[in-house]
C-alpha cells in the first residue's frame, strides 16, 4: 500500500509532495476502560492534504487531539520533523507550528474579526510587557508587520467586508472562515481542520473546499483534516486514513480507500446489488 519512497510522491494534479513531517507510531489512547484509539500508525507528508475519516465515534477527533497535544497517548510515539516529540502542552505544540480549527467554533465572540485573526499571530509577537504598554519600538514595528500578514489572509479568504464586525454577529459559515483565518495567521507548518464543513450548505461547502485547496496551493501548507462528508474528502485529499472503532482499517489514496472492502463494509455500507 505504501509504495512511496522517503522522498515523497507526485499527486495526480502534479503537486510535489515531500518527505514525512509528522508520524504517529503505534498510538493507543485510553479513557479509563474505554479504548479510543487502538495501535494506530500513519504519517503526514510535507505539502499534502491528509484526511482522517470514519463513522461517528471512530476516534477521529481523539486522533486530532493527540496530534495537537491536547491528549497524551498511553502508548506510542509522535514524531515531528524527524524528532520524537516529548509530552507537550497544547500551547507548546502550537508554538511548534501546528495550528487548528475546532468542530464547535472557538472564537472570541465579542471581538472583531480582525482582532480574532490577530490572536493567531501570538507566536510571532515577542515584544515585552513594557514595550507593549508604551507602544514603542519593537511593539509598534511588530504590530505593523503582523497586521500586514493578517490583512493578506483576510484578503485571501475574502472576509474584508467583515473586518471590523464582532464575530458574534456573523453567520455560521463566515465564523468557520474566520477560524480558518486565525489558524492560518499562525503561519503553521501543519494545519489541523476538525470538520471544516460541518453544518454547511452545499454552496458554503464548495467555498470552503476551494479555500482549503487554495491554502494548500498558495502557502504550501500541510493540511490534516477530519471530515464527515465523503464527497468532500474524496475530492480534497491526497491520502486518506480510515478509522473505525478506534482502529485503522484503511490508508491510501481516495481511490484505494474507496475500493477497500473493509472500508466499504464499515463506513460506506455494504453494496446491495
Amino acid at each position, binding site marked *: 500500500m505504501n509504495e512511496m519512497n522517503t522522498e515523497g510522491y507526485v499527486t495526480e*494534479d*502534479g503537486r510535489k509532495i515531500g518527505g514525512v513531517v509528522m508520524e504517529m507510531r503505534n498510538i493507543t489512547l485510553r479513557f479509563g476502560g474505554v479504548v479510543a484509539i487502538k495501535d494506530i500508525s500513519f504519517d503526514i507528508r510535507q505539502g499534502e492534504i491528509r484526511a482522517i475519516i470514519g463513522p461517528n465515534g471512530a476516534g477521529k477527533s481523539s486522533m486530532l487531539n493527540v496530534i495537537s497535544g491536547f491528549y497524551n497517548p498511553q502508548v506510542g510515539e509522535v514524531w515531528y520533523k524527524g524528532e520524537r516529540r516529548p509530552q507537550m502542552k497544547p500551547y507548546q505544540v502550537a508554538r511548534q507550528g501546528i495550528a487548528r480549527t475546532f468542530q464547535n467554533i472557538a472564537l472570541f465572540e465579542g471581538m472583531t474579526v480582525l482582532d480574532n485573526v490577530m490572536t493567531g499571530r501570538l507566536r510571532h509577537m515577542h515584544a515585552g510587557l513594557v514595550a507593549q504598554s508604551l507602544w514603542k519600538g519593537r511593539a509598534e514595528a511588530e504590530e505593523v508587520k503582523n*497586521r*500586514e500578514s493578517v*490583512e*493578506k489572509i*483576510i*484578503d*485571501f479568504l*475574502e472576509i*474584508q*467586508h467583515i*473586518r471590523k464586525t464582532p464575530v458574534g454577529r456573523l453567520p455560521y459559515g463566515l465564523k468557520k472562515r474566520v477560524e480558518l483565518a486565525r489558524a492560518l495567521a499562525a503561519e503553521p507548518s501543519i494545519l489541523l481542520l476538525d470538520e471544516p464543513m460541518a453544518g454547511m450548505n452545499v454552496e458554503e461547502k464548495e467555498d470552503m473546499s*476551494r479555500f482549503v*485547496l*487554495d491554502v494548500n*496551493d*498558495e502557502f504550501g501548507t500541510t493540511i490534516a483534516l477530519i471530515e464527515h462528508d465523503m464527497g468532500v474528502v474524496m475530492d480534497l485529499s491526497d491520502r486518506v486514513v480510515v478509522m473505525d472503532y478506534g482502529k485503522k482499517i484503511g490508508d491510501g489514496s481516495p481511490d484505494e480507500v474507496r475500493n477497500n472492502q473493509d472500508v466499504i463494509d464499515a463506513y460506506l455500507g455494504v453494496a446491495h446489488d
Partner: protein
Amino acid sequence: MIDDDRHLGTFDGGGIAGKGDRFAQADKGGDILGQSSQAAEGMASVPALLQRNAERFGTRPAYREKEFGIWQSWTWAETEKEIEALALGFLNLGVDEGDFVAIIGRNRPYFYWAMVAAQSVGAIPVPLYQDAAAEEMAYVMGHCGARFAVVEDQEQVDKVIEIQEELHQFEHMIYVDPRGLRKYDHHKLHIFADIQEQGRAAYWEFIEDLKERRGKLDYDSICVMLYTSGTTGKPKGVVLSNRNIIEASRASAEFDNLTEHEEVLAYLPMAWVGDFIFSVGQAYWCGFCVNCPESADTMQIDLREIGPTYYFAPPRVFETQLTNVMIRMEDAGRLKKWLFDVFMEHARKVGPAILDGKPVGAWDRAKYALGHALVYGPLKDTLGFSRVRVGYTAGEAIGPEIFDFYRSLGINLKQLYGQTEASVFITVQPDGEVRSDTVGVPAPGVEVEIDENGEVWYRGPGVFEYYYKNEESTKKTKTEDGWVATGDAGFFEEDSGHLRIIDRAKDVGKMADGKMFAPKYVENKLKFFPNILEAVVFGDGRDACTAFINIDLNAVGNWAERNNIGYASYQELAGHPRVLDMIQQHVEDVNRSLSEDPMLSHCQVHRFLVLHKELDADDGEITRTRKVRRGVVAEKYGDLLTALYDGSKEISTTTEVTYEDGRKGSISATLEIRDAAVVDVADDKKVAAE
C-alpha cells in the same frame, strides 16, 4: 435615465460592414455637424490627457484602491509609468493597431490602465460585464474579434477558456490575480505584472513605436467600444470616438464645475458608459482621483471612508440606503427617534429650498443648522455623503420621496437623462432647478427635439459613430445629419424648459379623443407607493383609463398585522375591503397629482381592481427582469378588462396558474371593481408638445 436597452428593435444578425470598414465609417457625421477636428485644448485622445496630467498634476493622486486594509494610491506621474509599461508590454505581446482588447473585471486601477494602455498602442478597449454568462461573453468577443483579453482572476480565466474554442482570433489572456492559476498552461496566459515587467525590459526596443502610435491618435480615432446589454436581440457594439468622450466629458465637467480636487468612487460596472465617462473621460479631463473599493461587499464602508465629492448611483441604490436608515431608526432609542422625526420633518420643509439658495426665514435657517449638527450631519456621514457636491441619479424614475429625502439633507442630488449612444449626456438638471419629475435641460452642446409622435431626438458632440458591424441598426437609429432617436417619448415643460420623459415611445398610445396615453408614467406614480407592487394601466383607444393593481404582500401584510386584519392567503388579503380602501386612496392621490399636469391630466384612473394573484414571470405576465407584458396581461385577463369598462360592480373569474415545477392549476375569485374619484380638468387648457 440612462438605459442601455434602447432601439433594439430587430437585430439583423450582424456582420454587414466588413471588418476593414470600421475606420472608413468613423468619419461619417462629424463634418455635417460643423465640428472642426480641432481637439479641446489640443488634447485629442485619452493617452494625450494622461501625459498632460502627469505633467500638470504629477504628484496628485490619480487612483486609489483599498487593499490589505489600506488605501494604496498612485499619482498621475506613477500612473503614466504604469500605463506606459503595460503599453510596451502590449507591443511586446504583438497587439496591433485596430485590435480589440477585452477588459473583464470589477473596478480596479489595473483595468483602467489596461484601457488607456490599449488606446496608447492604437487598439480599442472593449470593457465587458464581468458577471455576464459565458455565451454572452462569447458572442461579444466573437463579434468584435478580440485577440486579447485583460481579466481579473481565475473565475474570468476559466470563463474565457471555456469559450475559447468558438473564438478563432483569440490569442492572449492577461490576468491580475494569480491565485489558483499556477497550474494552468501559461503559453497564452500571462500575469499582468509580468507583462509590465517585460514592457519595461523592452523599453528601448518599443518606445519609438509606442510614441509613433500614440502620436497618430486623433479626435476621430476610436476611443472605446461599449456593448449595450440587450433584453431583446443581441448586444450592439457602440463605437465612441475620442471626440465623443472628450467633448462630452469637457462639457459636463464645465457644467458642474468639476476640478482636479474631486473624489469619485468607481463601483458601477466598467462595461457601462456611465463608468467610462465618470472614471475615465471626466477623470482624465479634470485630473481627479478615481477610488476603487476593496471588494464588491465593502462598497458602503469604502464609500464612507472616501467621502466622494461627485457621486453617481441608480435609484435602487438610493432606495436601499433609505430603507436601511429607516429600519435602523425603528430600532433606535426614543430620544434619537424623536430627534430624527422632528428634524427630518423640518428638513423636508426647508432643506431643498436652502439647497437651491431660495429665500428662507432666519428662524428656519437656525433650526436647520441645529438639525445639521444633530441629525443631518451624522446621517450624511454614515451614508458616506458628507462631502458630496454633485450627485446624480439616472437609469429609471426615482420616487419623489426618496429624491426629496436626500435633497432635504442638503445633498445636491440631481437627475440626468442619457444613453450609451450619446456618451451619456442628453439632458441634465442645472443646480437650483432640480425636481424629481423632470430630467433637466439639454446638456451643453446637445440639441434635443421632439418629433410629431412625441419621441425624443438629440444630436451633439457625444453622438456615437456607429454600431460595430451593424449598418442597418445604425441607419435606423442615427440620421444622416447626426440626429439620434432615443426610443423614449417626452415633452418640454413650457414654463421651465425642462424635459420630461413619459414613457418608452412604443408604449405611448392615443386615447379615443386623440390625447396622449402614457401608461408607464401613471404606473410609476402608482408604484411609488410601497403598498403597490405592480400596476397595469389601460386606456389606449378608450375614453378613460383603468388599472389592474398588484399589492405588495410584504408591505400590505405588515400593515394588516399592525391593524389586526386577519387573512389566510394572498387572494384574501388582496380582496379585503380595507385593503381596497387603502389602494383607492393611493389611486385618488395619483389622480390628483396627474390632474395638475396639463399633458397627462386625462390619464387619471377612473376604475381599478386589485388582482387576485401576483403577476408572475412563470405565467409569462412579466419578464424575468420584472417588466410587465402589457399585451399578455390584457389578453389573459380579458374578462376583467371588459368588466372595468362595462360598469359592473364585481366580476367572477378563473385564472390558470403555472407552478414553479411546471404543473398547472387554476384559481377562481370574485373581484370587486372600484370607481376612483377623478379631478375634473378644464378641457381648453392649452397642451404643448414642445
